[in-house]
């Protein structure tokens, strides 16, 4: 049980409005305990009232327009733009390939695909295959190759988009780490002040 004598003296000081914040806290802690002498119990409701008031919390979000929403909106916009861009590019590529495939087996068709899809290796492979077994060549094989190229292209685009998003996230993490460091510094200064 806490010695009530110093508490009584502190209480008198409190009513005279001469206590420090630290002394006020001592009183609040004392009256929050279960070992209160009978003659002091009449003050318990007062300190209980203060404790309850301190626990009141705001339920609604205090900030209507959180600044980080700007970053979320920007990130969402980038992703949306990328998605539209990829979709458009893929449609455009498919059209180009389809048109260029019409004169099957001719050089201009290969050039068109080569330029557009940057994948000469695969076409060279097709040409080799054509030479090896000309019966199997033709539209069926070219179609298969085109599908492969389209898939490869789409994969490259997705990779590029993901790496862009990843770089943005990295940047964000760096900024957050910087902010955390700054907050730690502030906290350290406060602690130093409090102890010193």
């Amino acid at each position, binding site marked *: 049980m806490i010695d009530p004598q110093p508490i009584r003296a502190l209480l008198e000081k409190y009513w005279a409005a001469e206590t420090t914040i630290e002394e006020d806290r001592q009183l609040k802690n004392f009256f929050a305990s279960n070992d209160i002498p009978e003659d002091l119990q009449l003050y318990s409701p007062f300190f209980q009232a203060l404790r309850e008031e301190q626990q009141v919390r*705001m339920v609604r979000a205090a*900030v209507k327009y959180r600044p980080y929403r700007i970053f979320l909106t920007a990130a969402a916009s980038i992703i949306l733009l990328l998605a539209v861009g990829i979709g458009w590019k893929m449609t455009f590529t498919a059209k180009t390939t389809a048109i260029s495939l019409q004169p099957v087996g001719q050089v201009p068709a290969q050039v068109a695909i080569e330029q557009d899809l940057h994948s000469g290796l695969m076409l060279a492979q097709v040409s080799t295959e054509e030479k090896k077994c000309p019966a199997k060549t033709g539209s069926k094989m070219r179609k298969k190759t085109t599908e492969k190229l389209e898939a490869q292209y789409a994969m490259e685009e997705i990779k590029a988009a993901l790496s862009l998003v990843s770089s943005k996230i990295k940047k964000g993490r760096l900024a957050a780490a910087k902010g955390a460091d700054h907050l730690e510094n502030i906290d350290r200064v406060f602690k130093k002040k409090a102890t010193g």
Partner: protein
Amino acid sequence: MNWVIFQAYIYPIRHKLYRFALKITGDRHDAEDIVQDVMEKVWKNSAESDHNMINWEAWCMTLTKNQSLDKTRSLSKRRTLPLAENEAFESTSPSLIREIEMQDLTTRVKQMMQDLPEKQRLVMHLRDVEELSYEEITQALGLSLDQVKVNLFRARKYIREKMVPEH
């Protein structure tokens, strides 16, 4: 306003501001509206003012006090105890008679505190609930140090006399 400053000094004191607004208006919704308005106002504060600011908490308290008083005056609201405090009494377990009695007395004390004259009420709240220093209270309420001390003394004296009539 710098985001780091806002996160470090302003956002953490939202509950304090809310309690202070609630103390003046006596209405939870009004208090929440006031805190949101204050936060928005602080956020829009120019970077130049940020550098000159000495005590963010005292400044926010001043803004909250002014907004709350404006709202109270414009609506001519009668201050009442927040509803949740009465609800807390109702939700107390009926089997614990002692606890109920204690809660009843606590509610009465809160009402006594609410009945104090405005300055005494606000000074007592900032000191005893929010644990602000005298200097911070003088800044927040625009009172002199002596006025703050006198108002705190009178407020505590009133409460003590009400609790212990022989004093």
